Structures are given as C-alpha cells and as structure tokens.
C-alpha cells in the first residue's frame, strides 16, 4: 500500500487536504463577508484606513438605501424631533427623510420579472421537455441543438434587434417585455434540464397508468408531474437565479418603470461618489436569497450550471 493511495486516504492526508480547502474557502468568502459587514458600517468606518474589522454596527447604510434625505437647518431639526428610529439615525447627521428611495421599487421589479419569467419558462419548458422525452418529434436533435445554440449569442448582440422589436411593439421598459425576454432566454435551460429529469422517470409508471385507463394527459398530470417535482423545483430555482442576476438586457432595455435591481444598485450614490454602506446594504438584501437557494440546491447545482450535461 503506497503512501498516497487514492482509494485509501491516510488521516494525515485528509488533514492537509481539509486545511487547504478550508483556507481557500475562507479567502473566497472574504469579499462576501466584506459586503455584509460594510452594510452595517458608518460611512466613516467604511472608508477608514486601515480597513476596520471591528466597528460599531449601524443601520445608516440601510436607512440611506431605502430613503432619500435633505439637509435641514438645526432649528428645523430641533422643531421636528425624530419620530422613529430611522428618523433618529438621519437626524444625527443633520438630515431629514424626504421620502422613500427607488430601491424598493427596483427590488419589486426584480421579484415580479424574476417570478413571472420563471413561472412561464418552467411551465412551457415542462411541456416541451415531456414531448421531447416521450414522443417522436421530427427533427428532435436539431431542435434541441437549436434550443441550446440560442445561448451562444452574446446578450448585447441579441439586444440590438430585440430593442428595435420591443420599440415598435411598445414593450421597451415594461414588465411584460422583460418577462417575455427572460422566458425566452431561460427556456433553453429549462427544456434541457427538465428533459434530463423526465428521462429518468421510468416509462413503466406511465404505461401502467395508461393501462389503468388514464388518458395520456392524465398520466402526464397525475404520474409524471409528481415524479418530476424535485427536478421542476430545481429548474425553477435556476431560472429564477438567472433572471434575478441578469444585467445586460436589463441595463439596455429598461430605464425607468421596469428597471431591475442589478442595474440600479451600482448607481446608488451619496456625497462624493458611491455610498458604499448603502450599496453594500442593497447588495446584501439582493444577494442573500440567492445564497440561500444555492445552499438548498447544492445537490443539483452541477446539473443546472452545465445544462444537464453533467449529472452526478
């Protein structure tokens, strides 16, 4: 037995491997920890040198993220004592809250467009994947390749004609337009992934159902769909994450009403440049759901990111 056997790893080797991997993990997570930490820093702490590891946490960044503020004279401030805790944070800096910022709106746009396009692409994708998996569809392989090749176009190249098309249809900067676009982009991923999941469901289940007098549609609805539930759920999460993270189309095709959070967060500015605590607060709120989903998805992660090419 040799010292570096692959099948029989010695405890010492395990320790070394564990320490190296843990070290990499800690370094790689540091920028993310820094985002979360910066969100709770005061603006002075956020740009302190050397970078502060220990600081007094404040919700200033979060208040800045959700509100717009105006400077007021000390008399006005004295005459209007703060009503709430967030008023208090703003008051300390000689400001009053003028109204809500756009962040809430942008975040809701991300939610509406993300969930809308996810629902549509999973719905259509499940139907198409079932047909591709179970029936003889003419030109099946060509169609599947065609579905995949749509992902090879750089988004900017796709955006040129889509921009013109949406302009003539009045879809630029609308929720409907963005939902439609993200659905089309996600559909290729959804069909590929779902076909893989449905292929894994044994045909015998359906055949048994058909013999029991179910119609094809009933068999699909009552037998295949429940079996594919896990696959459908993880496909949905992948579609949602894509739509959630997408930037290129969003920045080119939306400006006001339908703008999502990714193009908005980098534009959060304070006095003299970006307001980093507010940017970090926005980033934290925006990235956290994806982190949670990633942890939930970890078993199917590989399959999703490789379009189902690699299955564990």
């Amino acid at each position, binding site marked *: 037995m040799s010292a570096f056997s*692959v099948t029989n790893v010695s405890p010492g080797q395990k320790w070394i491997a564990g320490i190296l991997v843990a070290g990499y993990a800690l370094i790689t997570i540091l920028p993310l920890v820094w985002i979360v930490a910066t969100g709770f820093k005061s603006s002075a702490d956020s740009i302190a*040198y050397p970078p502060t590891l220990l600081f007094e946490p404040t919700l200033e960044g979060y208040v800045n993220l959700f509100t717009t503020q105006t400077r007021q004279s000390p008399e006005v401030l004295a005459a209007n004592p703060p009503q709430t805790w967030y008023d208090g944070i703003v008051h300390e800096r000689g400001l009053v809250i003028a109204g809500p910022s756009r962040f809430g709106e942008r975040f809701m746009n991300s939610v509406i467009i993300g969930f809308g396009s996810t629902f549509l692409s999973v719905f259509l994708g499940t139907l198409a994947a079932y047909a591709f998996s179970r029936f003889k569809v003419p030109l099946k392989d060509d169609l599947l390749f065609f579905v995949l090749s749509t992902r090879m*176009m750089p*988004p900017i*190249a796709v955006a*040129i004609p889509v921009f013109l098309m949406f302009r003539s249809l009045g879809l630029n900067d609308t929720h409907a337009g963005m939902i439609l676009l993200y659905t089309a982009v996600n559909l290729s991923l959804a069909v590929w992934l779902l076909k893989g999941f449905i292929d894994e469901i044994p045909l015998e289940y359906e055949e048994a159902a058909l013999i029991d007098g179910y*119609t094809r549609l009933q068999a699909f609805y009552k037998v295949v769909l429940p079996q594919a539930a896990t696959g459908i759920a993880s496909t949905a999460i992948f579609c949602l994450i894509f739509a959630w993270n997408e930037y290129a189309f969003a920045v080119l095709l939306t400006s006001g009403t339908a703008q999502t959070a*990714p193009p908005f967060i980098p534009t959060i500015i304070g006095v003299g440049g970006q307001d980093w605590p507010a940017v970090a607060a926005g980033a934290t709120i925006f*990235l956290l759901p994806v982190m949670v989903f990633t942890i939930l998805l970890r078993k199917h992660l590989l399959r999703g990111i490789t379009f189902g090419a690699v299955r564990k």
Partner: protein
Amino acid sequence: MANSMIERAAAATPSVTARRIRGLSDRAIAWIFVAPTIFLLLAVNIFPLIWTIRLSFTNFRANRPNAEVEWVGLRNYQRILTDADIWATMQATAHFLLWTIFFQVLIGFALAWLINRKFRGNDLWTTIIVLPMMLSPAVVGNFWTFLYQPQIGLFNYTVAFLTGADPTSFSMIGDVALAPWSIVIVDTWMWTPFVMLICLAGLRSIPDSIYEAAECDRASNWRQFWTITIPMTLPFLMLAVLFRGIENFKMFDLVVQLTGGGPGSTTELTSINLKREAFEKWRTGYASAYAIILFVTVFGLASIYVKALNKVKER
C-alpha cells in the same frame, strides 16, 4: 385472445369517439406541448437573428428611425475586419479568455482533487466555495471596485500587508498594466468553483477498482495520476473549458461594472465594444455586422471544440 379482442374493438370504434374516450392523440399532444416553446424561441431568438443579418448590410441607425436606410453590401463587414481597434479588443478578449481559463482549470482541478480526499466537512466547505458563482456579476463586480480602491480597499490592503508594498502605490483598475489582471482575478474568484464542481464529478466517476488494480501492478502514484486520473477526468475538464470559454467570450456585466472597459480601452472586451457601437454611437447596421461576426466566431470555435471533445470521450 383478449389482446386481439381489444384491438378489434378499437378498430371498430370510430376514430372521433376513440379520441373522445382516450383523449388527444400522442401526436397532437407532442405538437401542442412543443409549439409554444418553438414559437417563443422563433419570435425572440430566430426572428431577431434574421433581422440582425439584414441590418448588417445597411447603414441603419436606431436613433434616427426615419432617416433613409441605404444598402451597403459587405462594407460593414469589411470595415470591422480591417479595424485596428476591433483587433485590439479581440486581443483584450483573448488575454482575458486564456488567463481566466488557465487559472480556473489549475485552481479548480487542484481543489477538486483535494476535496476528493473525502475529509470530514468537505460538503460544508464545497458549498461555501461555490457561493460566488451564483451571485449577480454586476452587483458583485461593482462591489469589487470598492475592494480594489487604493489604500482603503481590502484587496490593496491585503496585498500590501503580505508584500510590504505601499497600499496607495498601485491601483488595480486604474493602471494600464494591472487592469487586465484585475478582471482576470475577479472572474477567477467567481468561476473557479464551476470548474471545480465539474472536475469533482469527473474524479468521482473513476471507479476505485481501477486504482486498486494499478496498485496491485505497483504503479507509482505519479504514474496513476497521469495514466488514470488525468485521462479519465479530461472529458469533464474539456467540458468545463467549453462552458467557460463561451461564457467569457460573451462577458459583459462583470467587466463593465469593474472597469467599464478602461483605462483607455485596455479591458474593452468585444461585448463592451459592441455595446458602445450599438447603444452609444448608435451605428446599428455596423454593430449588427459585428454581432454576426462574433456569433459565427463562437459558433465555429465551439463546433470544432465539441468535435474534439467527442473524440476524447470515445477513447
């Protein structure tokens, strides 16, 4: 026979009634199920592609929709292929592409190899390592400009702390020589886990019995690594490179937020350059030709690569 009785009964039943009883025919279901997908892809992918091809032969400008559109033939293509600036952006893209793939394969494979030692807690660490890959590149890229700031940025501070250099003496995204590396670093940070996961799947697909047989034959570890581990994970590794290659050729969001293509045009990747032509200079016809050239390039390279990949798989 019961079977033939059913068949006879089925044959005797008028088809309309049969359909009413059995529901839609398989053929009809197949078409009804596939049609919406095909329609949507035609409307949002193929129709625009054909439109782009048509525009690429004109001097159309999207900001002047009422101006007369002239047919210019292949002039747009000719101008793009002879434009020195565009070759410079191609070079910047190649630099980005080659180095990100190099580092990601190297680190990703090493990590996968270590994780495959099956030490305790490897699931937890793997999950942590994977996180950056799933996040919004634009939001994360924007935050990296903060980490890259001279003096106050965490990156500069850490490098200075480790090397003793002055943290204000270098600016990763402001310096012409460093900027191309700044985007390589962030992309590597983000996407190494992708290569790692695929390599891990490859390593786990190798049955233990092969190593055991090699050990019986007293093959050294070094030899086992090069004759078993590497060849058997190669198809996976190549697949990872294919995905990263296509993705990074299209790269836009991360880099546009990090450097915006600057300083000068040192990090102006093709997608960023294309965006400038199409949505800032509004040379729609010219940009369309550019887009077609990029598409053909990716498509051509990917097809050649997939052929090579299939050959490796067959071995």
